[in-house]
């Protein structure tokens, strides 16, 4: 019996192993067949599902990037986010700078084969400012009317001269007469919508009728993956070709020779800046004094933070003007980490250390305030703790107050703060009116800078259509910000992208690899084997 039992068990075990092996072999994906380069899809990770999308009013950055793939705009961005003509052959301002004329290209086709006309542009504008679908781009706030003069000419009438206006025409075009819908968008861009697997992916095919020729790759698969570890695993498993890496995975990727052999890693600075706004309107005894604000900047170890805590993933900021976009002053250097000089400046401003705990006091009042910041995210917590420790070393007590994002925005909006740490996205046009004009000091983003000269420069730049002149004016603003330090500009964060080495033609702009020209249009699979560095 026992022998028969053993035999039966052995037989069952062998059958089980054979069965599992057979299933495994059946299920195992054969190595991706090397299809023709023009048919092989490029698989890109998207953090959220971009659909449904209103092309003329995308709801967020992801939807905007998607809309730019499917539909062109009158104006596009080059790699440095300078406006360039796309669906429009060009634009001309009237002599009084109140009418902007766009001439459309004749050869632009919608994906259903109909040509782009001026009526489509008018429809796009109407959709973009429709309050039922969202909130219009503030660049459209000064538009009085949009007029279809003839089939290929559009006049945009402005209430007053406004040089940053052109950038708002990077809005993706939507076809008139409601062709396509939010789940099956119909555009006039290089990629044509093919399929949407809700919550999973969107598939786009190269549009053969695109006026600049079809894209180099035949198909784009936009894979929706939120989780960074799944993204990294998907890259290693060959399920995706392009993805962003978190700082942790960036370090892991750099340390892995096999990863380096299969993928290249690009880093780029995103148009974003972390900063601490000091309320300088006299409502507190600290930050009305320029010396104190500068001392705060000198006392905080910004380079050390980036090096040690942010995995080297960023660059110390100088002002709100982003270094990869035009408008800032490249000669300005960030203030160094210099706590000794910070102490001197604070002493000059009348702050003396108290016996016992060393906290600075002036007129009997201790230098103690609350620093507000968003409680979500480990990065903001780390920055806040570093600021607290650095300031304590020069005798300043910062009490940390983490808040829910919505509360933080409310507190800033209602001016209920002394110091607040925030991140700010930078627009492609450097117009800093919302940030630094006195008119915004009561309710807008400006935490208290009221400088008539800065106001004049900003206003002049809004009415100046010569880019060199605008740049000169903005450099003055940048220098004044550098001197006055209304904010401690913390750092410009980086983003890292891992890309299959077999994919060629991929470049990045501050907006990433997609939302600029030529962007994905230039991507192409290499014909032969691509060698990794050192091979």
């Amino acid at each position, binding site marked *: 019996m026992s022998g028969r039992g053993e035999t039966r068990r052995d037989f069952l075990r062998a059958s089980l192993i054979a069965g599992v092996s057979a299933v495994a072999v059946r*299920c195992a994906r054969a190595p991706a067949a090397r299809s023709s380069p023009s048919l092989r*899809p490029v698989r890109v990770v998207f953090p959220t599902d971009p659909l449904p999308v209103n092309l003329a009013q995308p709801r967020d950055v992801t939807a905007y990037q998607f809309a730019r793939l499917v539909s062109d705009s009158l104006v596009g961005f080059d790699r440095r986010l300078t406006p360039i003509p796309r669906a429009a052959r060009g634009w001309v301002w009237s002599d009084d700078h109140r009418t902007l004329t766009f001439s459309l290209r004749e050869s632009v086709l919608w994906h259903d084969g109909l040509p782009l006309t001026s009526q489509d542009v008018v429809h796009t504008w109407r959709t973009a400012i429709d309050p039922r679908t969202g*909130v219009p781009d503030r660049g459209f*706030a000064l538009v009085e009317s949009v007029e279809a003069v003839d089939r290929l000419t559009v006049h945009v009438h402005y209430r007053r001269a406004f040089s940053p206006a052109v950038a708002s025409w990077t809005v993706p075009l939507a076809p008139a007469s409601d062709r396509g819908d939010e789940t099956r968008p119909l555009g006039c861009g290089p990629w044509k919508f093919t399929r949407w697997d809700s*919550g999973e992916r969107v598939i786009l095919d190269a549009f053969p009728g695109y006026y600049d020729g079809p894209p180099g790759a035949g198909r784009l698969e936009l894979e929706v993956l939120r989780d960074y570890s*799944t993204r990294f695993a998907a890259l290693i498993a060959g399920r995706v070709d392009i993805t962003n890496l978190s700082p942790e995975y960036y370090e892991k990727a750099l340390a892995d020779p096999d990863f380096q052999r299969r993928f290249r890693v690009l880093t780029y600075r995103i148009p974003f800046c972390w900063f601490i706004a000091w309320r300088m309107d006299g409502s507190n005894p600290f930050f009305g004094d320029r010396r104190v604000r500068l001392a705060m900047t000198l006392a905080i170890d910004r380079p050390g933070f980036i090096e040690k805590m942010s995995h080297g993933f960023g660059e110390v900021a100088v002002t709100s003007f982003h270094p990869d976009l035009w408008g800032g002053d490249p000669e300005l250097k960030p203030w160094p980490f210099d706590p000794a000089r910070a102490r001197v400046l604070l002493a000059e401003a009348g702050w003396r250390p108290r016996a016992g705990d060393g906290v600075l006091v002036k007129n009997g009042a201790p230098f103690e305030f609350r620093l507000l910041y968003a409680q979500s995210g480990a990065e903001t917590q780390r920055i806040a703790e570093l600021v607290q420790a650095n300031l304590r070393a020069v005798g300043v007590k910062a009490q940390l107050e983490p808040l829910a994002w919505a509360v933080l925005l409310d507190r800033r909006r209602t001016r209920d703060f002394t110091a607040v740490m925030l991140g700010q996205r930078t627009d492609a046009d450097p117009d800093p009116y919302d940030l630094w004009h006195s008119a915004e000091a009561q309710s807008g983003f400006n935490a208290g800078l009221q400088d008539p000269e800065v106001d004049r420069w900003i206003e002049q730049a809004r009415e100046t259509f010569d880019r060199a002149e605008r740049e000169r004016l903005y450099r003055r603003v940048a220098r004044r910000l550098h001197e006055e330090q209304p904010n401690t500009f913390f750092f410009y964060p980086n983003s890292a992208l891992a890309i299959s080495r077999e994919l060629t033609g991929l470049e990045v702009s501050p907006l990433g690899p997609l939302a600029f020209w030529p962007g994905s249009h230039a991507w192409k699979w290499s014909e032969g084997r691509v060698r990794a560095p050192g091979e």
Partner: protein
Amino acid sequence: MTPTRAWRGFSTLPRRFAVAGVTVLGVTFAAFVALSAAPGDPLASRVAPEERRGLSPQEERELRTRLGLDRPVVLRYLAWSGRFLRGDLGESFQTRRPVADEIRTRLWPTVELNLAAFLVVTFAGLPLGWWAGRRPGRKIDRWSLVTFSLLYAAPSFWVALVLQNLFAVHWRILPLYGRTPPDGAASLGVHLQHLVLPALCLALHQFAFFARFARNTSASGWRSGHALCARAAGVPDIRVFFRHAVRPSLVPLAALLGLLLPAFASGAVLMENIFAWPGLGFLFWSAVETRDAPVVMGLTALVGILTVAGSLLADLLGQLADPRARRGPVGA
């Protein structure tokens, strides 16, 4: 036992349904108040701060009125519940589509995932537990105790990452994520392959819990006087085991299985994110992140209904499994 007497326990069903309806409304009211009382301006979820710069105070007031944010919370809730009873859950702040459509699109993937996890718990966890309970104190029982305890203690997200790396990256025998392949192939086999890892990971904790529970109840039944008597009288072991070890454990298990629905619903939030499974958990995560109140309310109502339905189901299963419950109170 006459049929009338057998089903007397079910006569309270109408009352239970009424209580269930009131419970769902209570849950939604609590969620509505909590959402409204959450700090911060609810308009921030509809309009990004950058966009808000483009709004005049008049436009902001109009938007608040249009969204109903200018009314007291009780009136807003009454309006919401009126629409809810008519099947209208409002419009998502983010996508501006009907919430019912958003939920409908994502409902089936979640049902599918939960059903698969339920099957794993029921048809693998329980038999394993019963089997271990038949040999209390022996090697198989000791090993099962260690294994079930480890499975119960292991963080499910960590297990998910390990399984992903083993089966999808290293051996490449199962899909890494998603519900369908990019080529659109929709065969049952392909679909089941996609289901394996997320369902296993979702079932993990409940599997360990139920297996352990089944082991304990069947072990005590197996060692009971009835079982010993029956075995001494020569009744076959297998029959004794089913009658005196497995059957008594069904009553509490039925009650617990009914409560699996809400447990899976919350577990699915994490698993659906890791496995990019396009279900309600994925939707819930995004809605909470973006403070999309109509979607959060719609999903809360759905989970409330599921919880109450699960509890009712547990009662009914308990009555089916336990004759005493079917007969109603003694003397009735």
